């Protein structure tokens, strides 16, 4: 019996197990426990939630390994952690720690202005952000086993998440309607490999699981992106910047499962306390927008 580890099927497969679920940003083992108890399918271990990273400014880096290990000890669900775009040594360190997934994330300050990490070279699977289909396919070509739209992290404003998800899905629908000979030009325009473009056109979906991130802060937000066609949600600041994190976390989990049932959505949205205070996108200068990081 030959046994193969870290194959494409196992990398992509873990993301398939997370579908229909909520992945929550946590900064301490206590937060991680709250997330797990609320029904999170995985946690993202990081030093500060995006809203605090945005407020603090400066350079945001990979978290302290000790903190990540503390969170891995605290919960039985998968633990993800973030590396800077292009910072393959941070990724090597995270792999050595044994995290279950690495997020090559625009929420941290990019380490390379041209190149992303060559993710094929790693045993641990990667999730990467995108704003459109071309960016998603470039990341998959580099080895990403899961995709999330970026939204605009730390704003509590779902508008970018909606824009980007609609963008990706409508570009997929456009490819589906194309003749074979039109796909060559589509690949050129998307700046994406032809084989992946063709695969998307054939199957009507990305070849990996696609979640939404960046701006989800209520159960209704989660249900909105699920109804639009997301396969699950990342919630960053939306939980631990709300008035009652445990209740908000639980409500977002319920809303992600029953996204298509307005009666249940009404029930789970009751009496949650104040969600995180949001930011209008116009208040954020272009230079401080996180979604524009990554290429």
């Amino acid at each position: 019996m030959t046994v193969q580890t870290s194959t494409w099927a196992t990398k992509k497969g873990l993301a398939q197990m997370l579908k229909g679920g909520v992945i929550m940003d946590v900064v301490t083992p206590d937060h991680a426990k709250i997330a797990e108890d609320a029904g999170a399918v995985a946690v993202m271990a990081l030093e500060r939630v995006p809203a605090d990273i945005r407020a603090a400014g400066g350079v945001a880096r990979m978290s302290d390994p000790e903190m990540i290990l503390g969170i891995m000890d605290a919960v039985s669900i998968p633990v993800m952690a973030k590396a800077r775009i292009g910072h393959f040594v941070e990724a090597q360190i995270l792999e050595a720690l044994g995290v279950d997934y690495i997020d090559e994330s625009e929420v941290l300050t990019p380490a390379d202005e041209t190149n992303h990490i060559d993710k094929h070279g790693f045993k641990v699977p990667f999730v990467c952000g995108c704003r459109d289909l071309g960016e998603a396919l470039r990341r998959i070509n580099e080895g990403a086993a899961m995709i999330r739209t970026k939204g605009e992290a730390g704003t509590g404003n779902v508008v970018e998440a909606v824009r980007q998800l609609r963008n990706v899905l409508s570009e997929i629908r456009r490819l589906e309607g194309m003749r074979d000979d039109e796909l060559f030009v589509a690949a050129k325009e998307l700046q994406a490999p032809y084989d992946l473009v063709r695969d998307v056109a054939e199957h009507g979906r990305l070849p990996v699981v696609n979640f939404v991130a960046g701006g989800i802060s209520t159960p209704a937000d989660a249900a909105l992106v699920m109804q639009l066609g997301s396969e699950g949600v990342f919630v960053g600041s939306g939980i631990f910047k709300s008035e009652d994190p445990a209740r908000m976390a639980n409500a977002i989990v319920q809303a992600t499962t029953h996204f298509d049932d307005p009666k249940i959505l009404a029930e789970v949205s009751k009496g949650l306390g104040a969600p995180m205070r949001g930011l209008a996108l116009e208040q954020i200068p272009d230079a401080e927008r996180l979604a524009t990081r990554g290429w």
Partner: protein
Amino acid sequence: MSTARAGAPRIGVLAVQGDFAEHLATLRSIGVAATEVRLPSDLDGIDGLILPGGESTAIRRLIDRWGLREPILELARSGAPLYGTCAGLIVMARDIVDGDATVLPLLDVAVRRNAFGRQLDSFETELLVPVLGDQPVHAVFIRAPIIERTGPGVDVLATLDDGRIVAVRERNVIATSFHPELAGETRFHRLLATMAAEHADPAEGAGRRRHPTRRTGSAGGAGSTAS
């Protein structure tokens, strides 16, 4: 008889979280009617149920929150077949090693979560499952559980080379540590569909089909058919 057409079973897939879409696609690929189950009312008219892979901690909470526990146990008591993969196995195990409370005590086994380690230890392999024939199953294990104890009524369907148990059946309940639905493997789903058809129409495959023109329920009906 819950189905409109005898012998054409309808199989539900628990769709609260996890890879339920892959199970639905696998069932449909072999021509079996499949439907998502999120609430107890979704179980009406179902002849079998799949509990998919996912995160068992999340799935157990969603089962409890929406009152699915008792209706699923009732479905199992009626004899309808159930099949669980990975998290589905954990959710149906009578004992979960190291802590978690039992969710649906349907399989007399003790199961250990994340028994191989973390994601870096996830693997795929060719596995012999004698009950499915000589062609091995391509088995994908993702942060998979292991069955550490089996009760007297439990049949072991597959083990790894080192003897660890990864597939079992007890009466109408089947469970695997691995994910046939990720590998285009349809034989477990075909087996479930066969069991569901037999449950929906006991004459199916039992050699005692009613005469096509005889009305059911009349004197000398199905019950008295000579065998």
